[in-house]
């Protein structure tokens, strides 16, 4: 890409240096990281640990796809296969997707975007990372001790009475990791309410903050219900209480209700922060304020609110009453609308912009396409009669991978690339990263589009062996997974490389308007030298141009 195509505004490379004092070199030694209260350092800790678990979960995904290359159960035994998909689900959901954007990018950026020096409770923030790690260690322990084969949904009475694997260990892991998530959400809500800089009114906040606010509400109110249902499962396994056990008079559907009361809002916990990233990226590379700022902001809150009313759509064929199936299906249709609003607003942000196509923007475009498919296939599943045929098949697998991987992971990568210069002070290699973005997009579609067809054919999920007529599509899917794997390895390599060899980024390589771009990269430990006073709306590019002009006149 030649310079005319981009807005990258790098300092002169011969003279450029990283700022002498920044949060990375403020203190030395491992302990200074492990005991830090600095939200930026905690974000980096999270980034490292999340990446670690992502690749473990990814390895399991690879093994699953490898096994499904042939219809016969030939690579591993059935028990092993069941452990593969259980570990894949548990690690990816509780240790990657839920904390991914909030705990890394959110942690790093939220205080800066609000003009604060730190999150409201730095120690609780650190505690939340430790809880995450304890959860992670328990998960790894369950893995090393022989794995767990409940699936991530812990369906009773299977998980309570019929399995001999390390269910309690895993339950502990999820319980603890859940509290990590609660503390992150709590910290964000308090910070947003209490720590905004002077002049930073609610409707001057970046949309990234709005979407994190919505997600945090879900974390705080939803996660404890998961915690209690997991505790009851563990108690039922260990001492044999009878809350979910049908032989003792309990109702296993009650577990489903409590589990999905969290686990449906959980998908909004996962996707909402990603939506925040997309708002920032699309605005910056169109050089325009997000179209319909208030609509996008309120749609985040609407998703969070409606998100609590739709959980039983996971149970349509499980024997909920017809009446409540109707109610939940109707509400499910309503929750789809705010997502549609967001998609169209992002598309119209491009209108009359001045668009460039840096890597984060490519990922964001990928997000728009894949999330549209993911969201629309969600409507398939929310429609009662359609759900009967599609649920528990590969259609649903493809659907949530389109939302979670095609949506959330794309957004995560967009965000990582977008804020990489701010986090490290260095640029990632542009052409290589564009290659990675395109590879990911192609690989993703090749992996998951065939699964929609498989699902309509009726191939059930979590199947170790399958009828031979499904093989062609499975081979395609496995081939795509290989490409996808390469697409995810690339950023790991070149981002690592760029830590040392990347071009110096300067304060504001993208010419973006957020407060985080007005300070040095990497930022100081206390973020701002003096508390900023906000006198402009979010995404005000005229303000930015004016400010730059002034700086040039005063300095030069």
């Amino acid at each position: 890409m030649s310079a005319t195509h981009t807005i990258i505004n790098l300092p002169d490379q011969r003279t450029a240096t990283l700022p002498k004092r920044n949060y990375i070199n403020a203190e030395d030694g491992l302990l200074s990281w492990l005991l830090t209260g600095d939200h930026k350092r905690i974000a980096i800790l999270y980034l490292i640990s999340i990446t670690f678990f992502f690749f473990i979960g990814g390895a399991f995904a690879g093994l699953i796809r490898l096994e499904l290359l042939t219809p016969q159960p030939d690579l591993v035994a059935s028990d092993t296969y069941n452990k593969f998909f259980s570990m894949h689900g548990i690690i990816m959901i509780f240790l990657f997707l839920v904390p991914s954007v909030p705990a890394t990018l959110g942690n790093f950026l939220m205080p800066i975007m609000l003009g604060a020096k730190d999150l409201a409770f730095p120690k609780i923030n650190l505690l939340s990372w430790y809880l995450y790690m304890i959860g992670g260690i328990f998960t790894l322990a369950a893995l090393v001790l022989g794995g767990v084969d409940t699936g991530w949904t812990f369906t009773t009475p299977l998980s309570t009475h019929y399995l001999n694997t390390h269910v309690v260990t895993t339950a502990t892991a999820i319980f603890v990791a859940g509290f990590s998530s609660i503390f992150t959400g709590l910290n964000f809500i308090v910070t947003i309410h209490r720590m905004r800089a002077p002049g930073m009114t609610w409707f001057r906040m970046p949309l990234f903050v709005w979407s994190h606010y919505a997600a945090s509400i879900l974390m705080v109110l939803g996660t404890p219900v998961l915690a209690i249902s997991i505790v009851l499962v563990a108690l039922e396994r260990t001492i044999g209480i009878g809350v979910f056990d049908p032989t003792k008079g309990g109702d296993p559907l009650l577990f489903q209700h409590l589990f999905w009361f969290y686990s449906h809002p959980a998908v909004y916990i996962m996707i909402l922060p990603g939506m925040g990233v997309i708002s920032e990226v699309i605005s910056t590379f169109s050089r325009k304020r997000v179209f319909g700022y208030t609509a996008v902001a309120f749609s985040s809150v609407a998703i969070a609110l409606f998100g609590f009313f739709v959980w039983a759509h996971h149970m349509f064929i499980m024997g909920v009453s017809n009446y409540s199936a109707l109610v939940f299906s109707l509400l499910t249709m309503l929750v789809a609308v705010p997502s549609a609003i967001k998609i169209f607003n992002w598309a119209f942000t491009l209108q009359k912009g001045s668009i460039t196509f840096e890597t984060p923007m490519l990922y964001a475009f990928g997000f728009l396409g894949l999330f549209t498919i993911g969201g629309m296939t969600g409507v398939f599943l929310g429609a009662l009669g359609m759900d009967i045929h599609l649920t528990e098949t590969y259609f649903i697998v493809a659907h949530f991978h389109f939302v979670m991987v095609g949506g959330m992971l794309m957004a995560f990568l967009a965000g990582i690339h977008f804020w990489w210069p701010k986090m490290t002070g260095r640029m990632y290699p542009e052409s290589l990263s564009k290659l990675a973005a395109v590879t990911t997009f192609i690989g993703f579609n090749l992996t998951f589009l065939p699964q929609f067809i498989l699902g309509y054919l009726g191939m059930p999920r979590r199947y170790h062996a399958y009828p031979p007529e499904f093989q062609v599509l499975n081979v395609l899917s496995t081939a795509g997974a290989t490409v996808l794997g390469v697409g995810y390895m690339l950023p790991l390599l070149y981002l690592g490389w760029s830590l040392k060899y990347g071009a110096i980024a300067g304060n504001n390589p993208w010419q973006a308007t957020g407060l985080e771009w007005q300070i040095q990269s990497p930022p100081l430990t206390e973020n701002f030298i003096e508390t900023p006073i906000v006198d402009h709306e979010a995404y005000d590019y005229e303000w930015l141009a004016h400010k730059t002009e002034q700086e040039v006149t005063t300095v030069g």
Partner: protein
Amino acid sequence: MSEQHFHDPANITNPEHAEHHIVTPATYCMVFAGLLVGTAITVGAAYIDLGILNPVVALAIASTKAVIVILFFMHVKYQSNLIKMTVGAGFFTFLVLITMTLSDYMSRAWGLW
């Protein structure tokens, strides 16, 4: 909350802010006595057959006691609207959990199951 620290009227002063109010021991004593009386009434009411009203009365008394604790012991009466709304949000979500789940159980064609 004095003036000169804050250049920003929208942020700290309203509506999420409330003066720090110190509740007096006398109030606490009244609340304490009220709670003990409430407990006695609950136990007493349980021995009277009120039919369907028994659980209603028990829950009404418990809720009253809880509200008193929240308002006075927990100072919510003197807190900002933000805190009041937060407390409300918690009970609201709890109600969502209950009503939406009950919408299933109460309309099941199979009775219990």
